[in-house]
């Protein structure tokens, strides 16, 4: 499984000063545990897969695509993870820091893991302005875990 991270300073077509970190959590027996990446590498400009999966994830939930990376200075990284067999569901958390004002936004993607394949349970969109409480409620129901566990996680990351 992959997540992405980036840091970007740009002024065209609009000012952007942002850092995005990503975290992957495995859900097993009702508990979320953080996974560590087995590999980190730059998103390759020549790779169809890299650019497409970067755009799919970052373009959809952060609102920044590989086109923005070209527009500024910074980096775009792909983080690869091994998913343990006991992991039935996974939660990706993107922590977006707007460096202009220090504001932090969390965005989520929840996936179901079955026989090494992933299916989408929940995804944020960059335009969503839903309150964190309602997002966590929704995630808690999709993942089948306690609200409090997710609330604590969100508080720690924010």
């Amino acid at each position, binding site marked *: 499984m992959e997540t992405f991270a980036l840091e970007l300073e*740009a*002024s*065209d*077509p*609009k000012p952007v000063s942002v850092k995005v970190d990503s975290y992957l959590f495995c859900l097993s027996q009702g508990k979320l545990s953080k996974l560590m990446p087995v590999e980190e590498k730059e998103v390759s*400009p*020549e*790779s*169809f897969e890299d*650019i*497409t999966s970067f*755009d*799919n994830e970052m*373009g*959809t939930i952060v*609102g920044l*695509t*590989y*086109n923005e990376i*070209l*527009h*500024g200075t910074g980096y775009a990284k792909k983080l690869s993870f091994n998913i343990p067999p006991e992991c039935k569901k996974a939660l990706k958390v993107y922590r977006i820091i707007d460096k202009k004002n220090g504001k932090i936004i969390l965005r989520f993607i929840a996936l179901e893991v079955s026989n090494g394949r992933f299916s989408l349970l929940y995804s944020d*969109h*960059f*335009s*969503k302005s839903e309150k964190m409480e309602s997002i966590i409620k929704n995630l808690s129901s999709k993942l089948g875990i306690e609200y409090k566990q997710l609330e604590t996680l969100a508080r720690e990351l924010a």
Partner: protein
Amino acid sequence: MAQKNVSVEEEFHINYSRIASLGIEEISKIAEEARAKLFPKPGVDYKIYLSKRPPLREGEELITYTQSACPECNSLLTAAVFKRDGKVWIRKVCQEHGEFEELYFGSVEMYERYRKYQVDGRGNIIAHLPVTAPCPYNCGVCTRHRSHAALINVVLTNRCDLSCFYCFFYAKKSGYVYEPSLEHLRYMFRQARLTEPVKPPAIQLTGGEPTLREDLLDIIRIAKEEGFTHIQLNTNGIRLAFDPDLAVKVRQAGVNTVYMSFDGVSPFTNPKNHWEVPYALDNLRKAKLGVVLVPTVIKHYNLSEVGKIIEFGLQNNDIVRGVNFQPVSIVGRMPRKERDKERVTIPDVIKKIEEQTNGQIREEDWYPVPSVAPVSRFVEALTGKPQLTLTTHFACGAATYVFQDDGEIIPITRFVHVDEFFDYLDKKAEELEKGKNKYIVMLDLLVNLRKFVDMSKAPRRLREGNKLVKMFYKIFARHDYSSLGEFHYNALFLGMMHFQDLYNHDVARVMRCDIHYIMPDGRQVPFCSFNVIPDLYRDRAQKVFSYSFEEWEKITGKKLIADHYKRNIKKLISGEPYKRHYSKLIDIDSIPYEQHVLASQRFGIPVIEE
């Protein structure tokens, strides 16, 4: 007779006559099957060559890098946008086809001013397609798209009564007839309105020539049934000129505005419909149906007439609501030297307008499209409902309003402090978003509104009784748009929309496009993918859902050639409407009849004399 369950697998080129009478559910199934097959294929339709950054040369200063398609093979390239000699240029290098350089924006100063207004929109939460390819090969529309559609375009037919020499789109040249059935169109309208959080309110019925469809009134009715509240009809005006009932009928059916091609005031700059426009305008007058004139601006062709086009609009301001200039989009492959003769960009047109109106409409009177976003933000914060927001790329379009007052042209910017007003609305929106009481904010608006208007410089009719301030208050505080009619009366909207081509193509602009086409397979595709990469979008999709000429002629019992318009210039130029519309702008008597004929024939429209 229609055959049910026609499978795309069995017959990829769908024999349209077999599905034309199917219901919406079956059409939808076929469209979805076709969509998967029509999708651009990596390695076949395009390649990715992003690692090579184009070189910058002496005297050039980088603005940014972006992505762009190769004009020869559609592959995705890294492009440099840079300054040189006070202008903005774009350069890209394809590993297979070499370097391409093109003018991007004719003024660095205007580029930098416009950029300050850029805001990104909300895009679409409900995507028609998952993201499985880089932009612009995934259009449909996808979740990374930044703007929601403000306007949906739908091609009703590729038949046309004209045969303009430069057009490769119409039925005769493309080799098939594309003409979706009513139920198919209903499916397309529903696909267009799927998007959230904002559904497109406006639709433009286009072609080919949409008035050639005999069921046009049914189509207008269906568009209304499917939720479109503003319907535009894009036409060359020929039928409107000769059928006085047509304007009345389309207005009664629900058309709000006619978009009519109008490239200049003389037969030489506007051989497409110079002779017919006066008659079309008179019929629109009778029907009380407003029209926006749409000049395509080409440097060597009609850039010299942009001021006169505005003058023509103002002279007919009782029915002409706006002029929407479109700097040329270069279709097909063209050598650099040829392109340089044609290429104009938004700043070039704006500068010529300033020159040709003797400084009455100045460069600073124009604002880029996303500059109005604070208005939407404010209304959204006030109402709590997502609002239509224009968030195109700043280089895509610009606009202003002008008024006539005792023969003088007064742009809105002379009496409304636009920047200060938008800043104020942004601040008030922020206060509302943070939870400030909306009645306190409204009171503040009421007190402060007059600060943004210099009534002494406003046109007389807006000065009387503080009409303008009252009007603004009604719009912003009460969302009562009825007064907008009064604002528009005697005002002329001036717009500028520069659609791209493969030479100046910028993915950052495509990604923010808010004028989308709905395709027969249900995808919603940004204008500058649909028309700029037609072999991957427009032509590919329309060809699949088409009739052969023989099929179409058999089904309709008509001959395609019967649509073909032949112009009777003698009759047209001798009519009173012709003289009334043009005599103040051109010396109509000084143009010999033979010159009229030549202009029409060179353009591809035959002339008859009865």
